[in-house]
């Protein structure tokens, strides 16, 4: 009974997606015509200035919050007493937030900088103003990388103080490998479980990205590159997971693996 319901739900979702795709295709031609009639110059000029300001504010705010969180964690660890075992768990948990903020800052920085460069090419602002905005954005982009690396270095060093068996320097290209090798069974289990959740989320995200890049190609003439890049990322994700799983499942024969 449950299986029939599952199949029915799948068919409904499939039919709905087909209908939506058909209607999008029919309307894309009309929407394209409407967009071409719009005067987007003023919008692009305003966005050029707006995004540059947003970029500066974004990094200042996130950098400030991240370092404040790190300082709180550092203070809590430095003030620990000898018999206080719970403090270690609290510190390890609280370290995750500035780490997350740093990673988010890097990713959003890449996106925002890309948008700013795109708008620079399309805008019709005064040459000096548009160049100044671009140079300020470039400086902020580099500053973004610098503060995130400094923060991550401090967090990794704190982690190594708490757990002296941990090895690795974040400036080293082999950091991921060394860090993983210094993790014990419980830490590796945690990493594997988190990685599987990330895999599932990335799986769904690739499909959504394909839809948007495809619609962008139809409606805004963004070109085929975005569609191909999403495909390349999706392929890398699925293939790397499948190949790793196959290696785990290789059957044994007497004397060792096949």
């Amino acid at each position: 009974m449950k299986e029939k319901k599952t199949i029915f739900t799948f068919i409904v979702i499939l039919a709905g997606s087909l209908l939506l795709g058909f209607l999008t295709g029919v309307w894309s031609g009309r929407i394209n015509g409407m967009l071409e009639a719009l005067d987007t110059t003023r919008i692009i000029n305003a966005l050029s200035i707006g995004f540059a300001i947003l970029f500066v504010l974004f990094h200042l705010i996130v950098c400030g919050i991240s370092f404040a969180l790190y300082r709180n964690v550092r203070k809590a660890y430095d003030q620990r007493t000898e018999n206080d075992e719970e403090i270690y768990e609290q510190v390890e948990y609280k370290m995750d937030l500035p780490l997350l903020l740093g990673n988010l800052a890097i990713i959003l920085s890449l996106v925002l900088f890309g948008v700013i460069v795109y708008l620079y090419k399309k805008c019709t602002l005064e040459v000096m103003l548009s160049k100044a905005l671009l140079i300020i954005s470039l400086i902020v982009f580099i500053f973004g990388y610098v503060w995130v690396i400094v923060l991550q270095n401090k967090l990794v060093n704190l982690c190594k103080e708490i757990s002296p068996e941990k090895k690795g320097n974040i400036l080293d290209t082999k950091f991921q490998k060394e860090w993983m090798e210094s993790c014990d069974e419980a830490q590796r289990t945690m990493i594997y479980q988190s990685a599987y959740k990330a895999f599932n989320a990335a799986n769904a995200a690739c499909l959504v990205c394909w839809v948007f890049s495809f619609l962008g190609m139809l409606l805004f003439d963004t070109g085929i590159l975005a569609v191909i890049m999403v495909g390349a990322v999706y392929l890398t994700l699925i293939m790397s997971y499948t190949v790793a799983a196959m290696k785990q499942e290789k059957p044994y024969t007497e004397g060792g693996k096949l």
Partner: protein
Amino acid sequence: MPLTNKLKEYRSKLGVNQQDMGKLVGVSRQTISQIERGDYSPSVTLALKIAKICGATVEDIFQYED
């Protein structure tokens, strides 16, 4: 989790903290903490190591309840 344990009790008898217990059995303080909280079930190897250090059997320290 159906697996419960008396690791904290045995660790207190030994008079070691989580960090030192971890060093004795070859894992991190974090893992000892997770085992004691019931958030992680150790591998057979690790359970045997813990039992040996504590001078007890695996069944003395870890209990499985359906």
